[in-house]
């Protein structure tokens, strides 16, 4: 691997870190503009002036915003995410279990949806404009067009209420047997798969079809290669960059965009955790979760970029 590629990759990583820093500032500003404050949100409608003042003092809310921000940033750099203002829990340990849950669900949703999407995409190209292509595209588009809460409720209605095959609420906990855990996440993983499937499938199909217009595909056809051989050996490798891009985008979505699915299936992941704490104006938690989400997003995009660079000979061997 040439040094220019290493330099390119190093640049990407540096840019990613810079972006992360910018995001943390943005999140902080965002939480500052929200009306109300933590003390008010914790005590709710039944807050009195005295109890508000007591709580504000105890939470250190009377310091200026920038001091609170840098205090927090310093903590993060030394591996300390701080404690939640509203509950006094250690954020790192509270997030740990939830992040693991989110990743677990995302992993299984991805393990089903990515291969499925690519295989369906390849099939659609092979039988393009035919019945199979139209059926695959039609079903995938239909499942994407339905809002995820609707898909979720449909799954619950049939699989949990009518047939009672899978549980409608996906409560998981530490020490739960693996098979039970898989059973619990069956419905949310299916819902997520249906949501992201079409995007990846359509992009795979479009990217390969794009390549299929090239002259060398015609040559391959004239050589007498079978259609699947052509797609597998000649078209797919050249379409990898856009496919990886869209796969990464969807993986990121599986981790950071699952709030709705988590709520419907009562799954104890990061999304619900974030929403609860936004409602409480719990800035340290919102910052921590926001930062993790941003890091996931930026990392996955970076991987997509790097994969695109590595997959493209022109970038790999610059003149």
């Amino acid at each position, binding site marked *: 691997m040439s040094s220019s590629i290493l330099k390119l990759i190093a640049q990407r990583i540096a840019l990613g870190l810079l972006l992360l820093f910018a995001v943390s500032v943005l999140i902080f500003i965002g939480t500052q503009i929200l009306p*109300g404050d933590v003390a*008010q949100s914790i005590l709710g409608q039944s807050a009195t002036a005295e109890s508000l003042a007591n709580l504000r003092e105890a939470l250190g809310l009377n310091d200026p915003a920038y001091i609170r921000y840098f205090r927090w940033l310093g903590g993060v750099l030394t591996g300390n995410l701080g404690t939640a203002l*509203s509950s*006094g829990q250690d954020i790192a340990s509270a997030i740990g279990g939830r992040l693991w849950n989110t990743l677990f669900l995302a992993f299984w949703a991805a393990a089903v949806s990515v291969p499925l999407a690519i295989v369906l995409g390849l099939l659609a190209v092979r039988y393009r404009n035919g019945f199979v292509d139209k059926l695959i595209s039609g079903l995938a588009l239909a499942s994407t067009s339905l809002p995820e809460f609707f898909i979720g409720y449909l799954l619950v209605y049939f699989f949990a209420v009518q047939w009672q095959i899978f549980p409608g609420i996906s409560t998981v906990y530490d020490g739960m047997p693996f098979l039970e855990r898989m059973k619990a996440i069956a419905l949310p993983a299916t819902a997520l798969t249906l949501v992201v499937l079409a995007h990846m499938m359509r992009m795979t199909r479009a990217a390969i079809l794009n390549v299929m217009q090239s002259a060398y595909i015609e040559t391959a056809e004239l050589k007498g290669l079978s259609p699947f051989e052509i797609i597998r050996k000649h078209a797919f490798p050249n379409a990898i960059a856009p496919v990886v891009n869209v796969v990464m985008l969807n993986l990121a979505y599986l981790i950071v965009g699952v709030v709705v699915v988590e709520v*419907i299936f*009562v799954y104890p992941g990061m999304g619900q955790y974030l929403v609860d704490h936004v409602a409480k104006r719990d800035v340290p938690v919102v910052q921590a979760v926001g930062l993790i989400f941003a890091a996931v997003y930026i990392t996955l995009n970076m991987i997509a970029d790097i994969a695109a660079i590595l997959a493209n000979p022109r970038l790999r061997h610059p003149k």
Partner: protein
Amino acid sequence: MSNELEFLSRRVATGQLNRRDFLGRAAALGISAAFANTLLSDAAKAAGPVKGGTLKAGLQGGESSNVLDPALNLSQVNFNFGKCWGEMLVELNPDGSLENRIAESVGSSDDAKVWTMKIRKGIEFHNGKTVSPQDVVATLERHSDAKSKSAALGILQGIDKMAVNGDEVVITLKDPNADFPYLMADYHLVIQPNGGKDDPNAGISAGPYKVTVNEPGVRYGGEKFANYWLGDKIGHAAQVEIIVINDATARTAALQGGQVNMINRVEPKIVDLVKRVPGVTIQAVSGKGFYPFNMFCDTAPFDSNDLRMALKLAMDREELLEKILRGYGKVGNDIPVNEAYPLFPTDLEQRKFDPEKAAEFYKKSGHSGSILLRTSDVAFPGAVDAAQLYQQSCAKAGIKIEIKREPGDGYWSEVWNKQPFSLSYWGGRPTQDQMYSTAYISSADWNDTRFKRPEFDKMVLAARGELDQDKRKKMYSDIATVMRDEGGLIVPFFNQYIDASGKGVEGWVSNPAQEMCGGYALSICWLAA
């Protein structure tokens, strides 16, 4: 046996239907009296509490930011779980009377100023220690400390001093208060070892269940406390579990799918659908919660009582009740209390929708132009629709209402108790005095109608110190009349707590004090074999 008969006999067994009515209904279904009687005795046998098993509740109102500290206990899940592991001095019975728990007896001096609570001997905390009068005093101290964040701080402000005298706790109040024992039933006042001063979040008290699982916003679990002082009287299930399900549809589905045995907060609009699910019983009870339209009595144009009267008369309460709560509630009478309160004055005339009279008062007030009403989805479910229906009924009286829909975020800090005309909710208080003192006397922190009348304050204060029940009832009637005719409060309706229990759940006793049998559903219900 038909489902209906099964249902009816269960209702007899749990005391919700009397025997004679049951036999009548059975006859109407073509069942002979002899067979109906057999059914009844079967149901009664089945109605004996079944011990053991795991009882699960799917509840709305829990967040991952919750803690076990009863002082900071504000949401439904913590409230319900608190009743599983916590033990109180006294408890509110479904009929509004008080039951002594940790307090063996409660008595007062003749002027209702000095209260003495005898602490029951031999009650054990989950950590093996014995509940002492010192623990009780420490608990009250922690909640009433001026620096306390406790939500019970407000109701304990009347305490002047506390002392332990042998096995008694003696409390001296600043002013007489005949309702003092009721205040001790406040659900925040869970008695903890050393008052919870050492570790408020330990989840240790003397309730029927010991805390085994505490995953905020996800699930809670408890196992029967072997040395529970009431033994087998309550706490029938061996384990209880609460699963936090904030989404209404998911909650209903979990009950239908049998993953939980009971749920809270069934939305009025789906009650009729849920009723049809086999095995599911809707448990609705009229509570003390109401959804007020608040006017600031000291801010123009609402400083005119004629205008306030016009706005009160222009409300079609029946229509609002039917359309917003689907009839699951009772119309309000512009006072913050209803018959769920002890000593409620029943002689008050119900205010009715009267556009002509409203128009008259409106004309008399001399106001012109539109009136701005602020609402939001968080005020109560259906608050935006309620404002729109009100706008239409006001139009019939020639009053123009302009509606401003405010964002839910910050509604309680920026709009409620800040803007002169807005929608809100109140969850109710144990006694009438509490309700009036919390929001309708001059010095109240939450006087969200800015109703400030020294003579009204005096009436409330006098009623508070009166130990003669008949005199007190008359006094509350006078108070309610002033409130109804001069206050800044429009009450369209009182809501009902609508819960649902699933197949095999027995022992449900509705309690108007709160949802889920006053929070005791998990402790008093059992699963029929």
